């Protein structure tokens, strides 16, 4: 039933946002991690709590493969996968997280009561609970992005695919009485990426770059065996 509902939602939507990450280009430099902090008002976690509570909506997972001297480091940026069949959604008792018409897993901060069931049910461990009231030592608060709310203690947060940028792109397009065109919207991470490894776009546009990349032979989805149907496509490294 849930599958039918979600399919119906995405079919009726005007846009289906998705992100492709080309692991053959990615250098693991973490420019995207800092870009995400700068864009989304993610507070710095007190050092004493850093190991347990640091919030990086986007992280670089890395693994060693092989043994010295033929050893390799493998790595991939991981953020909310914006699943079509999101395990986080049905467990929220107050409907604070749901899938919107464009396939984004939206988090409603002022509805969240902090049960953390969603984080518990997320196989990607990309949801973060605000254990602390966020603080910015004066005058660091001058940098805060006015397009993004500052989340209080007690609520859950995660990558939004920079929904504020999506909204801005849609408004700009509607003022010109047109659809959002491919390349109009970039998430903060994809915009910053020096190796141009991240491509954001609309899957409902068959000519978009993301549609073509997602259909490539190298495209995979993280833990796809779980059936979560993520909207993040990893283009595996070529051999």
């Amino acid at each position, binding site marked *: 039933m849930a599958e039918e509902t979600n399919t119906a939602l995405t079919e009726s939507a005007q846009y289906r946002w998705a992100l492709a990450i*080309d692991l*053959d*280009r*990615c*250098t*693991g*430099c*973490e*420019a995207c*991690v*800092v*870009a995400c*902090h*700068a*864009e989304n008002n993610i507070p*710095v*976690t007190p*050092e004493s709590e*850093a*190991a347990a509570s*640091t919030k*990086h909506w986007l*992280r*670089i*997972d*890395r*693994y*060693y493969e092989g*043994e*010295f*001297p*033929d*050893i*390799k*480091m493998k790595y991939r940026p991981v953020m909310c996968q914006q699943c079509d069949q999101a395990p986080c959604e049905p467990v929220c008792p107050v409907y604070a997280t749901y899938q919107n018409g464009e396939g984004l897993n939206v988090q409603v901060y002022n509805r969240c009561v902090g049960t953390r069931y969603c984080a518990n049910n997320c196989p990607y*461990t990309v949801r973060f609970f605000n254990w602390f009231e966020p603080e910015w*030592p*004066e*005058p*660091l*608060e*001058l*940098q*805060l*992005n*006015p397009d993004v709310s500052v989340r209080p203690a007690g609520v859950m947060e995660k990558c939004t695919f920079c929904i504020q940028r999506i909204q*801005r792109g849609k*408004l*700009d397009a509607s*003022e010109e009485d047109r659809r959002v065109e491919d390349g*109009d919207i970039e998430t903060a991470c994809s*915009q*910053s*990426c*020096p*190796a*141009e*490894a991240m491509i954001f776009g609309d899957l409902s546009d068959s000519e978009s770059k993301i549609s073509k990349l997602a259909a490539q032979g190298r495209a995979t989805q993280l833990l796809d065996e779980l059936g979560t149907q993520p909207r993040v496509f990893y*283009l595996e490294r*070529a051999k």
Partner: protein
Amino acid sequence: MERRSFFKMVGTASGAALTGACGKPAAELLPILVPEEQIVPGVEEWHPSVCRECTAGCGVIVRVMEAHHKLERDGESVLHPIAAIKKVEGNPLDPVSGGRLCGRGQASVQRLYHPDRLRGPKKRTGDRGAAELSDADWDEAHETLASLLRQIDPARIVWLTRAESSSRSATVARFLDALGASAATTVGVNDFSVERAAAKALYGWDGLPVYEIQDADFVLSLGADFLGGWTSPVLYARRFGHFRQGRPQTRGTLIHAESRLSQTGWAADRWLPVAPGGEQDLAVAIGNLLIEEHGLGKDVGEAFRAPYTNIDLAATIAATGVSALRVRETAAQLAAANAPLVVAGASIVRTNSVAAVGAASGLNVLLGNVGKPGGVKAPTTSPFPRPKFSDPQARLEEAEIVFVEGVDPLYLQPALKDALAGVETVVSFASMVDETAAFADWVLPDHDALESAAAVVPEVAPGAALTGAASFVRPLYDTRPVEETLSEIAKRLEKGIDHVTAHSAYEDTFAALDEKDEWDGPLEFADYAERQGGWWSDAASSSAPEAGATVLEAARFEGSESDYPLTFQPYFSSRFGDGSGAALPWLQETPDPTSSAMWEAPMEIDPGTAAAAQASNGDLFRIETSAGSIQAPVYVNPAAIPGVVSMAIGQGHQHLGRDASGRGTNPLAVVAEAAESQTGVLAFGATRCRLSKAGDGTLRQFSIVDRETEPVRL
């Protein structure tokens, strides 16, 4: 103004700003009588600028919007509306950044709004190094320094800086010239003196070679962590992305040879773990195979070929630490490639690094790719001086007054402390109290880079480039640009220097080109810096290489092998660069790419060494060298070369604000005083060490894999 409308913005007249409500574009332009930095925009504006976090010179665009700054006025706290900087991104028009930006560049906004920035000029009241400073007055500072300079022998004036070529370096050069003093000098750490010296010796080029990675199909990077903390990480990451997946039917192959698995090693198709000091041997061995087995280099002179041919190949390969199979394979791949390229560098400097980089660069001559697409290109010339290294120890011993700008010498070379202590007057232009500013008699804080007008020549660029910024926000505090401070001092000395402004830098450059009939475009600063963030030309340097022969020499290490059985190699990371990045909380919180550590930098050791020392992740160990000892937590790195201890440079500040001070240790503090033999710069990768347990510790790692799996089995 929106990011995507940036191109449209550049067509708007200087001094104009868009205003409006609800995000709708407005037609009204503010009168040009309102200076740009006094406009508080209600909706976003994007202004071009240049990143100064390192010397790469990436063009950026800066998002400016209204914010409320808390001020004390008549004893009351008030909120004052100001034009605040919200975000820094790459400038899509800039050929270096191409609209992209590294983490350090993006975090630069935290330097601007750092709570521990100096609010005005200071003078020392306590002991040197104690950072006990009291408020001073700009006039008092100018007057005192002018009267000191009046009495001093110009030979005893020293200016320490970084290797940036800019309107700043030109002003400093004019100031020092007017006083009759020697040119400004770098401190020889993280200034790429080795790569410059090798390029000069091999090709006769002044500047860093430009590697055309994007058009190569096979790249061997030898000693150059070009995707990490090397010369121009954003430019080379963009080129790497294109090299890998930007061309239909062609995917470039990258082999990386270095004594640690660096970021470039991660991205490579294969990493060759070169023994520390074996970089030259690997270059020579590959050169030998290219000449003897693959028949390359027939058209180069015998003197050039000699260093590669007059060797015992088996012994040379053995000295590399890389298997003969891999060395031969790599040489064969280079010989077979359509567009092979060797990127030569010394991310970790040894005593023979100029020879090693020269030998590696010489492979490009053998491969015949110098000046070719996908090969190595000559650097473009700069209209401004780029400060060079001269031994700071010797300079400081003779100095009576030292100016320190854009660099923290006591962090990069803690051994300079005694020499600096003997200098009568130390003047720092730091915007936060760093190790050297804590030693200074006067701290005259510069504007933040994002508040400053500047013209910068990028370290490496595809063609001629002058990247810059106008001022577009009002400075937050009572700071002064260094140019203005020097002008004030010079005025009092009746030396009246015509200081180089960002405006004059552009206009002089264009006038010089115009005189030579090489430029027919507009000649005004506003047409470039204010509107698009720089002037760039496709014209590359036509300098022909001279192909001088490399003189080989063996690497030396300080400390006897019996007392110090391990090799110690600090390295520059993409997070902290020259150490100044440690001040910024975003960078402290960003996990270290290798160890995933946050808020600290562990020592990386191999599992065998860890087993012998009974060390596990997080244990606190002591690194002892002939120069002293430090303590750091251990990270057992499965990819560390056995017997090699690596540690990222960046932590271990006593000062530099609340996020850096008192945290971790500075690996450069235990580097022995070994010099690179041809340049004299600090060979910070030429020290032997030993380890001993110092106690239990912790390692704050972000990686869930590390936190949740068993410790590495020993």
